């Protein structure tokens, strides 16, 4: 024990050096935007790679059990499909309409299917990592959507992965419009509830009511017009008092997102 203490006292300058370098490098990564972004992109590549391998291994390990469950569920679902299809057509006319409009909008675009391999949802500035990168044709500024609505915008791309600024990010501003009336506003997440975002700059004379659908507008450079974003659940006044602030129930649940599509061109 004494020899350890003697050693530590004699070599204390090493500890001081390592400590101070640690503090400096932490400052470099957290205090400089460029260095921070490079660092997190590189670590994302490593983390995404490891998570990808982990997913593959786990999928393989659970394959026999998953197969048995799927067979059981298949039998049950076969019986349910016919009943549900009829019920869906009769009861959920609006939802069917939304899906049809989304399909129409996306039909005009090239889409790159991707899997979400990493995500953050609890921060103010949330991001996703997808398993498609430059080699697959993904570039910065491209929009990312899923079956239920918009997801975010690609901000950084490496050879095989891309980082997506989620719509649950305080830096994200997406031009949207109220379906039917055409009034434009900016979708901007304020933090808090991950299923509710706000739409600002909606003019006070706009005809809007709770339940109206919000969709991407044709002013957006990133997303094709007409993609479903969510529904108005509350109408408030913006802090400047000159416009409406709409509270929008988002159609996409980021916590359960698995498969997405990158919109290649608009």
């Amino acid at each position, binding site marked *: 024990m004494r020899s350890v203490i003697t050693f530590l006292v004699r070599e204390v300058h090493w500890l*001081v050096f390592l400590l101070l370098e640690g*503090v*400096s490098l932490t400052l470099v990564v957290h*205090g*400089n935007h460029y*260095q921070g972004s*490079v660092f997190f992109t590189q670590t994302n590549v490593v983390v995404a790679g490891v998570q990808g391998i982990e997913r593959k291994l786990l999928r393989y390990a659970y394959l026999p059990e998953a197969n048995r469950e799927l067979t059981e569920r298949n039998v049950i679902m076969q019986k349910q499909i016919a009943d549900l299809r009829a019920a869906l057509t009769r009861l959920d006319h609006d939802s069917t309409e939304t899906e049809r409009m989304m399909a129409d909008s996306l039909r005009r675009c090239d889409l790159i299917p991707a899997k979400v391999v990493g995500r953050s949802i609890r921060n103010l500035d949330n991001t996703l990592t997808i398993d498609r990168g430059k080699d697959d044709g993904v570039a910065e500024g491209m929009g990312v959507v899923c079956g239920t609505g918009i997801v975010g915008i690609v901000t950084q791309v490496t050879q095989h992965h891309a980082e997506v600024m989620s719509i649950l990010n305080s830096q994200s501003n997406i031009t949207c419009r109220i379906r039917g009336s055409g009034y434009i506003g900016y979708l901007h997440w304020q933090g808090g509830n991950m299923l509710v975002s706000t739409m600002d700059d909606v003019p006070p004379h706009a005809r809007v009511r709770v339940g109206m659908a919000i969709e991407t507008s044709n002013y957006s450079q990133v997303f094709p017009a007409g993609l479903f974003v969510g529904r108005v659940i509350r109408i408030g006044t913006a802090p400047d008092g000159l416009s409406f602030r709409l509270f929008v129930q988002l159609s996409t649940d980021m916590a359960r997102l698995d498969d997405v599509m990158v919109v290649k061109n608009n």
Partner: protein
Amino acid sequence: MDILRKSIEILTLLAVQVLVLNHIHLGLYALPLLTPLIVVWTSYDISPVKLTVTAFLVGLIQDMFAGTPGISASALTFAAFMQRPLLRLLMGKNLTDNLEPSPDSMGALKFVFYAVMIFALHHAVFFFLEDFRMIDVWGTFLSALSSLLFSCGLALLVDYVRRKKL
């Protein structure tokens, strides 16, 4: 008195760096960095912990003015940490406990080599952290090399003036 003189030297170098040299970019590439002189001038009897902490604090203040948190602090801390091994390597058996690095005590050639090495170590870390991704390796190398030449020339001039005054 010695501490006072050293403190004035450090503060003067720091002031010249943040108020004048930080605003000079020669040919868009060369950025003169004079603060490693603090490490060059430190005598061998100063404890390495004291030198490393001083270098870190000087770097941190330089970073605060340049808006580059951590970069100068890391580079200067590294240069300070390497000072003693470098002196041991260069001086060998001639190294005395109270060696004050200068052309008189070390010999002109060895002193110039020692100063250039301290500046080179500092610049290598500084420009690596500034570029970080090493995409434009050639551009970073040019920038580091031209800055090193500029900084070393300026440092040797400042060292000459300092010795004349002392």
